[in-house]
């Protein structure tokens, strides 16, 4: 493995606007009156509900239990009573069930998890069970249960652990602040994951636009035999496949997982959460989220309990100075636009972002002029413009032949399109139609 990271083909360089919140230290959000914890926060099966209306819960006690291997338990963010099992708009806009907790203000601790003091001698299986019990999911965005990634199926060996600290999305600074202020936690988490996987070391990949974070990590990394790797600044550097290529030079085959090339990728926030879960016995009930955007009075980074209403987060940031055009959960490139303020912070909410009117007007799609900008910037090396034409004509078979399934939905193509074509949306549609077609075939 060479020390110099490889640069993947393509990519874009959007204005990162990170200066809004990059210098703001992480603040602990105050205890709010009520929390709405969305039931289904992980990819895979939703957990089984353990509580009912009127029950009292303590901070960290179980609200729901994993219902299968690809499922994680859910814990109460604070002590209080269950007010209702209600519905709130989920991250995709569709209403989803949630557990509404009225906080009693005591914040009484009641987690079933005991701290594991000497993790270095603890059995890997025990550590892995702890990660599962703590309900840790990929906190970078997808929400994939962490323990599943740490369980390579038989016949597959993992030889490289990569921690994703690229944070290539513009605006977001949560991981940056985390790596800067809690470098030790991140590195410790990496070491624990490495132990679970039976590896000696791990690599933390950080984009070079965060030199202070790299420095902070480097200070503590050698203590745990972890390496820090600076990465070229290029969106989507934080996409799993591009990250693996940059660090190891391996290409994850289309339709395969990082595990197929012997890699495990975890987000730095997940690693810090894993460190907390093992050493402090803290389940996944809080996370660091960037609340930012030009319309906000005071953008910054906060440590929120899971289930914090977004309205509270926006209030912490001082409210708005002008009506924003969009409210996003996540970053501006892959985040999801919301039509309601009733959304809540979830385990994978890395950012709450307001986009101002002048940054994004209502674009109308114009015909493709075949300029090839999307072709140049596609990190997956497919032909967005051609696929887009196929999808527009409902030729999903063409789209499939043109490898639309390899698309990672990073949005680089739509970003760069001078005709403002909704390429990314078309590809999502095509992928869904093709998958539906495959299911039909059986």
């Amino acid at each position, binding site marked *: 493995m060479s020390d110099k990271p490889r640069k993947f083909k393509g990519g874009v360089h959007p204005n990162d606007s990170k200066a809004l919140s990059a210098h703001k230290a992480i603040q602990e959000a105050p205890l709010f009156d009520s929390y709405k914890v969305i039931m289904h926060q992980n990819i895979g099966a939703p957990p089984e509900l353990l509580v009912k209306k009127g029950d009292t819960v303590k901070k960290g006690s179980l609200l729901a239990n994993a219902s299968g291997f690809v499922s994680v338990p859910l814990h109460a963010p604070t002590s209080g009573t269950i007010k209702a099992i209600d519905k709130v708009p989920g991250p995709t806009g569709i209403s989803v069930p949630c557990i509404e907790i009225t906080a009693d203000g005591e914040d009484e601790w009641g987690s079933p998890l005991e701290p594991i003091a000497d993790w270095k001698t603890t059995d890997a299986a025990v550590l892995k069970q702890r990660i599962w019990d703590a309900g840790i999911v990929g906190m970078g965005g997808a929400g994939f249960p962490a323990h599943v990634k740490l369980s390579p199926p038989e016949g597959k060996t993992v030889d490289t652990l990569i921690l994703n600290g690229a944070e290539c999305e513009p605006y977001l600074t949560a991981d940056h602040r985390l790596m800067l202020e809690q470098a030790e936690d991140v590195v410790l988490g990496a070491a624990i994951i490495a132990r679970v996987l039976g590896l000696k070391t791990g690599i933390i990949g950080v984009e070079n636009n965060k030199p202070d974070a790299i420095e902070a990590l480097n200070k503590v990394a050698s203590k745990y035999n972890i390496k820090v790797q600076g990465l070229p600044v290029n969106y989507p550097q934080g996409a799993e496949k591009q990250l693996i290529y940059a660090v190891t030079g391996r290409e994850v085959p289309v339709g395969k997982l990082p595990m197929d090339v012997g890699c495990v990728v975890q987000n730095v926030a997940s690693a810090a959460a894993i460190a907390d879960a093992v050493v402090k016995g803290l389940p996944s009930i809080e996370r660091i989220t960037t609340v930012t955007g030009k319309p906000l009075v005071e953008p910054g980074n906060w440590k929120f309990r899971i289930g914090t209403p977004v309205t509270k987060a926006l209030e912490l940031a001082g409210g708005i100075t002008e009506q924003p055009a969009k409210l996003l959960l996540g970053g501006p490139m892959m985040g999801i636009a919301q*039509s309601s303020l009733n959304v809540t912070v979830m385990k994978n909410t890395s950012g709450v972002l307001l986009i101002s009117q002048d940054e994004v007007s209502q674009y109308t799609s114009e015909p493709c002029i075949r300029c090839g900008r999307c072709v140049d910037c596609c990190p997956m090396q497919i032909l967005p413009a051609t696929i887009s034409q196929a999808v527009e004509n409902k030729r999903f078979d063409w789209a499939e032949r043109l490898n639309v399934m390899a698309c990672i939905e990073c949005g680089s193509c739509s970003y760069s399109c001078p005709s403002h074509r909704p390429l990314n949306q078309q590809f999502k549609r095509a992928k869904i139609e093709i998958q539906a077609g495959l299911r039909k075939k059986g």
Partner: protein
Amino acid sequence: MSTAIIAIIAVGILGALLGVIIGVVAKAFAVEVDERIEEVTELLPGANCGGCGYAGCADFAKGVVSQSATPDQCPVASPEDVAAIADYLGIVAEEKDKMVALVRCSGDVPNTVRSLYNGVRDCRSAVLVAGGAKGCDYGCLGFGSCAEACPFGAIEIKDGLAIVHKELCVGCENCVAACPKDLIIMVPEAATTHVYCNSPEKGAAKRAVCKTACIACRKCVKASGEEDHMEIDGFLIRTNYENPPGPELVEAAACPTTALRIDTEHAKGAYAGESK
């Protein structure tokens, strides 16, 4: 004279030779064709809508001839057409009720909360963005994916709501699969009175986003009395299509949100929704 004879002989021999070659090759490369397939294709309506589940009429004809399909699976063919095909193939045709499509939503633009949407003008794409940018998670998105899927032009988008023109619908079910919200069902043509709502939410939640939602007040259930015309399904009332009500129920029930409607009147846009 002699040139003419030579010409006749020469061309004659040539012709005979070519004829023999073709004859031999035709024998060697003979392909069997079932004539009945062509005949059945002729008898079918030829809409190529795919409503039968086959790839077009010719494919369906193949299925019918090989007896893996029955003629009445064609939703477009009239009973007479089906009878003709059955007659030709010497099989017994089954009678079936004609079904038409129904969009179970009445939330047009004046009556529902919608957010601003910017993207592909197509339901199946729009649903990927925040579930379709509509206050109600279950309602019609109004971008007309169903209308586009309809080969017979029976669906119209009026004020951001899909409306089926029953008289044009042949029941091919293409629209059913096109709707990402699963709003469209097939109902007997004879049924005239439907509940134009499909949201299982609580009444208050529905009312907050839509003026014409069914709030399950059960007035229509009471009005139908012993007749069992309407079924209660959680926070939603549905028409019982085993025993559908007549148009008189609409007046008798006096639905407060006008979710209960007569289909032809609905197509004309006769209902205004709850005034609030």
